[in-house]
């Protein structure tokens, strides 16, 4: 349904040209969830924003690549057409529910906006639909909440309202950028369960950006691991988490604590990711990689398919 091919997004600043997204390709089917993981600054969010045409401009631009939605390119669309895509087919949930709602508009107005603008509903039809949406996301007493403002809601409820807005116009694709980071564990579990149920009912495709592997394990069918603007490994979730092949994926998995792993000592990854303004000539992970070889310094590794749906960009697998 969504097909991204060789996407490159560059930033042009006083420091020169920064390759924030440097040749990313992936696809996403209806009803499927793809997880995008990596450290901060590896290009996850810029990839997501460029899909809906909201990457910061004029600082950054898509210099090459293709994004297709149901076989149709959406990169060349006019502003007006793109707005229609954003309203009707792709929507996005951002990390922080406290800043993604408008504090001076009522909840009813904000959730109803996509319905009125993109589904041509009148006041009473949209009102009924908003109540139904809020109920689906388990907001208690939705009829009485329509005229409330965001500050009257708790964090967990606000994030559910943000979810209701994103799902209002019944999109085909939802991009969720760390949607639960600001929530407490219990609310996080609840929000993910709601999202999962709605996904099943509607065949929604989800692109899930997170750095939390426990969420990946629960939510995603497939995972793509990003490092310095490139996808270094992609595969089915269970396989990638249990037998990661790329040294970066391995290192990342060994550096995060988890409730299931107890007190076993963590291995942190030494050094830091390279600057996007000054990427190494060869493999971008080479300076931090414990398996680095001469070859890695010379050229960026090809992508090797080690199984159906599992591919890795590392010379070790040649």
């Amino acid at each position: 349904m969504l097909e991204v091919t060789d996407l490159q997004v560059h930033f042009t600043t006083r420091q020169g040209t920064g390759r924030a997204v440097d040749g990313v390709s992936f696809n996403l089917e209806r009803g499927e969830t793809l997880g995008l993981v990596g450290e901060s600054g590896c290009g996850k969010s810029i990839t997501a924003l460029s899909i809906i045409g909201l990457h910061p401009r004029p600082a950054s631009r898509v210099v090459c690549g293709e994004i297709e939605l149901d076989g149709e390119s959406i990169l060349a669309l006019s502003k007006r057409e793109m707005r229609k895509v954003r309203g009707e087919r792709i929507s996005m949930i951002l990390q922080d529910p406290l800043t993604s709602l408008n504090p001076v508009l009522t909840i009813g107005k904000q959730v109803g906006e996509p319905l009125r603008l993109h589904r041509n509903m009148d006041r009473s039809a949209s009102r009924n639909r908003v109540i139904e949406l809020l109920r689906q996301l388990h907001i208690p007493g939705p009829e009485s909440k329509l005229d409330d403002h965001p500050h009257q809601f708790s964090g967990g409820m606000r994030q559910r309202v943000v979810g209701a807005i994103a799902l209002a116009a019944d999109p085909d694709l939802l991009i969720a950028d760390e949607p639960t980071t600001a929530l407490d564990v219990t609310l996080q579990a609840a929000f993910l369960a709601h999202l999962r149920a709605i996904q099943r009912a509607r065949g929604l495709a989800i692109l899930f950006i997170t750095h939390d592997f426990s969420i990946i394990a629960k939510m995603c069918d497939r995972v793509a691991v990003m490092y310095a603007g490139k996808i270094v490994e992609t595969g089915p979730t269970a396989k990638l988490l249990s037998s990661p092949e790329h040294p970066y994926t391995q290192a990342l998995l060994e550096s995060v604590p988890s409730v299931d792993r107890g007190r076993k000592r963590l291995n942190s990854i030494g050094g830091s990711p390279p600057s996007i303004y000054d990427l190494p000539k060869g493999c971008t992970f080479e300076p931090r990689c414990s398996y680095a070889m001469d070859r890695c310094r010379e050229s960026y590794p090809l992508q090797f398919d080690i199984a159906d749906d599992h591919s890795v960009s590392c010379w070790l697998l040649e």
Partner: protein
Amino acid sequence: MNHPDPIIGVRELKKHFPVGGGTLLPRKERKFVRAVDGVTFNLYAQETLSLVGESGSGKTTTARMILRLIAPTSGRVVFEGEDVAELRGTKLRRYRASVQAVFQDPWSSLNPRKRAESIIAEPIVINQPLPKAELQVRVEELLAAVGLGPTVMRHYPHEFSGGMRQRIAVARALALNPSVIILDEPVSALDVSIRAQIMNLLRDLQESFRISYLLIAHDLATVRYLSDRVAVMYLGRLVEVAPSEELFENPMHPYTQALIAGSRSTTMVDEEAARLLASDIPSPVKPPSGCAFYARCPVSVAARSHDPIFYKRTVTERPELIEVRPGHLVACHQFDPKD
């Protein structure tokens, strides 16, 4: 575990903040948020005790009372047999030196106008003045202890990454050889790859400096990695206290079970449980008279139809924190021997 004397004892600690008209209103109409509502626990030598719970459960307020940054409404914090609120002069200074803190956000906890060396030296200059040359050596030692070289001394906080700043905050906390460090969400503002470094550092320092940590965190993976014992808070009260392994393998309170299930990668919360969990935390201004968790508790909700007597108890009677196994305390009617 066999612990003789606690370093810090917290006894029936309460903090009620006035809300609305607060103390201007006639006594009867005053309203209070019961941020901390009767908390008792011990912190022993060289252990890490974690306080976990949702935002608003009173974790940070408890820590601030221990640090004597705010005064409790009632109850006591006991240090070496003395009530911390009564400490004056030299004794108070000694307490402040013994109990240090590292806060969540290293962007706001370091003075942007001071160099790393004066940030780390400040507690020493104030409490145990040293000649300049010795001070210099001491700062270098502290930097080395947190894995930083002497070259960073002349730099300002804005020149450092988040991980380095947090190392400097830790070095400052170590400056006076404290016996306790309160860690308030020490890694949650850091990037994933840096977290492991800081968590390993904290574990190593605990061993070499023989410090006790009181860790406040909402991320259970961090808690499990660092803790010896865990205390779970809900709405200003403790609902479960147990050794870390025991708590994660055998959580007894339904709230703890929900927290752990939510953090595990293998368990997906089902729709019904999710709906219950998502119902909001009751107001700490008017907490329920029974168990504070009953409205979100699957056990209580299930009992509503087939065990009305039990259900009524959860709604009307506040469960006591009872030791159900050695070292494992739970406040839940399911485990109350009065049944």
